């Protein structure tokens, strides 16, 4: 009896595997490891620490997905990808998901055949100038020399902004953020422009951060988010709803500290119950078990905790929540309901 049941299960599993062609979820479970593409080193978002352990805001998303799927936030193989290799790595199946502060754009979503599952950080291109320059608005930057990373969308945004405001600038092309810092501090350019999060982390490293100001103009929309390949909707749903679970957890006050307790005894809030699997069966719809979201939250905390730990105002980078506050606090971070 037992043996035939086992054989039956095995057959069913074989058929299921046969029908679900190239299911990323099955692949991940079979490998017992999530292959997650991250940046090769970006302050606050992805970096290996002195012990070689990956830390950061994007890294935390990978860990949450690994915890939801495999039950362990450490079962992640971090594949460092450069700006040039990230999309091929994802398209070719070398990685299962990409969390590498990648801007969600039309062409990437549609033409490159990826699926952005959400936004985990709303960024935008800004300007940093020395206060000694006496500039209070980007529109006063006529004739300025601007340090800019070549081959990125920031270059195009900059050209658009200056042209639409009828002012001129002189670009100083640079390759990396480190080079930009050195050039800017040496006075090779009056202005440094890149994503506002990058400006914040760069400014925080200066000897006298107060001597430099980030101008109020944000000239582009850079919604950054994790992405997966087209064509595997189940896997896309898992990553999307793991991110949503982190966001919803913050909204509902579920933290890494209390997730175990709230999950134990069914609380009063039905959405918390649905999120943590004490009520309803949302996990099974995803092809996971009941506790998937609880595990994802337990590994690094909810969205707000992850933000505060990696890039928040208490860290050396010190980015305010701003647009990235929960919608209940006037920000843009918003998740569809767990229902």
């Amino acid at each position, binding site marked *: 009896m037992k043996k035939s049941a086992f054989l039956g299960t095995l057959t069913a599993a074989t058929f299921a595997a046969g029908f679900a062609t*190239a299911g990323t979820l099955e*692949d991940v479970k079979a490998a017992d490891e999530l292959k997650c593409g991250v*940046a*090769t*080193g*970006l*302050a*606050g*978002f*992805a*970096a*290996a*620490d*002195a*012990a*070689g352990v990956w830390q*950061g805001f994007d890294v935390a998303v990978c860990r949450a997905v690994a915890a939801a799927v495999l039950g362990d936030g450490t079962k992640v*193989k*971090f*594949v*460092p*990808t*450069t700006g*040039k*290799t990230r999309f*091929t*790595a994802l398209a*070719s*199946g*070398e990685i299962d998901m990409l969390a590498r502060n990648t801007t969600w754009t039309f062409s990437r979503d549609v033409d490159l055949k990826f699926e952005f599952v959400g936004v985990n950080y709303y960024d935008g291109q800004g300007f940093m100038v020395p206060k000694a320059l006496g500039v209070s608005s980007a529109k006063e930057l006529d004739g300025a020399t601007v340090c800019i990373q070549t081959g990125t969308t920031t270059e195009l945004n900059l050209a658009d902004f200056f042209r639409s405001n009828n002012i001129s600038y002189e670009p100083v092309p640079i390759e*990396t*953020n*480190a080079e930009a*810092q*050195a050039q800017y*501090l040496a006075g090779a350019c009056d202005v440094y422009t890149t994503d506002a999060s990058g400006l914040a*982390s*760069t400014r*925080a*490293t*200066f*000897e006298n951060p107060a001597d430099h100001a980030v101008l109020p103009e944000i000239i582009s929309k850079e919604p950054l988010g994790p992405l997966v390949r087209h064509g595997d909707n189940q896997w896309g749903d898992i990553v999307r709803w793991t991110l949503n679970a982190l966001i919803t957890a913050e909204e509902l006050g579920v933290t890494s500290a209390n997730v175990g307790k709230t999950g134990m005894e069914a609380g009063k809030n039905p959405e918390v119950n649905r999120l943590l699997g004490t009520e309803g069966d949302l996990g099974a719809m995803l092809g996971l078990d009941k506790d998937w979201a609880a595990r994802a939250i337990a590994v690094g905390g909810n969205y707000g905790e992850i933000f505060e730990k990696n890039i928040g105002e208490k*860290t*050396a*980078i010190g980015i305010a929540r701003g647009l990235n506050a929960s919608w209940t606090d006037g920000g843009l971070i918003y998740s569809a309901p767990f229902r």
Partner: protein
Amino acid sequence: MPDFSYVRSEMLPEKAPPKSEVGIYGWLRTNLFSSVTNSILTVVALYFVVSLLRGVLPWAFSPTWGAESLSDCRGILHELGREGHFAGACWGVIRERWTQLLFGFYPIEALWRPLVAFILLGVAMAPVLFTSVPKKLLWFSAVFPFLCFWLIWGGSIWFPLAIFAGLLLAGVAFILVTRYSGSTLVGVIATMLVPVLWWIFFTDPVSSAVHFVLPISLEQVESQNIGGFLLAVLIGLTGVTLSLPLGVILALGRQSDLPLLKYSCVAFIEFIRGVPLITLLFVASTLLNYFMPPGTNFDLVLRVMIMVTLFASAYMAEVIRGGLAALPTGQYEAADSLGLNYWTAQRLIIMPQALKISIPGIVSTFIGLFKDTTLVGIVGLFDPILLSTNIRADQAWNGVLWELYGFIGLVFFIFCFSMSRYSMYLERKLATGHR
């Protein structure tokens, strides 16, 4: 006979050379101030050297070895009353991350493995590099690549040994088949076929079977954890050892009379030399992914090693072809007149001379290859430069620039300078006087 003479009969004692020609004064005069132009050049050069040192030394001598972050460094320097952007170097980053710069993310508890491999590398290279070392050690040099692979990547020892057994089988096949068939051609074909069949069909089962009986294994280390100078040395060393024989074969092929062989060698060399290394690296990291069936896990480090080796062997082929072209025709004719066949003539007469002529070119290619390994960062492998980016992504060290580059530059200099010194030693030793 009168007891006087018109010329001096005894030697005068040697006089001390004039003060202006010996000692420090003389050295200065001959080397630094021998003419007005040289004196001016000396003074100008001294000025530049001194002002450079005056800028760099105070910066470099900065008591920040124990600092935990860049702001820590600034605090230490501030207490000493040193202010400003170039107040002093922040060496704490090297103290905290030097293992990462040297070995990447290699597990700390297993660091002895690359160290042992490095020491054994010295033993393996000694008989190749120096004639005074007993030749029997060459056996160790032959086994070393497999031992090194096992030490660095870990896993079962039987897998690399089984691969090595394939090479031994090839040798046995050559001897046996040649003896019994009487034809060298059949022997050569067997030599190529036997190890390939062995590697495809038998390596895995045999090594796992032996491992089952006698499990000797080290903990496996994934390729992506190998980085820093360990990665640079691994890629460089593979490229260097494999590109030399490949280059010799390609150079000979290019001079061959067989059109098919000749033009395939020419096409290979010209194609590889015609594309930048970065393009080849992109092919290795991205394009190959599309061609391989999904799910195959062809190690990126291995792919990059293959590409770097191909790249280096094309350049090596041209360097060696230069050496071959420099040999007078008389050498070839002399070999022919002695009745030597093609391979014996190459081995005994042509190659020793051609290689000797090409030593500076060969070593330059090696040094260039070693430095080119920093390019692998663009495909996401952690070479020392990309590691420095990663270290800066830690907000504690964000903004530290020259300390990291200085350290990396110093280590590269040690490697490249010793290679160039060795090449000069070799040239002196092999100088048999053609001048």
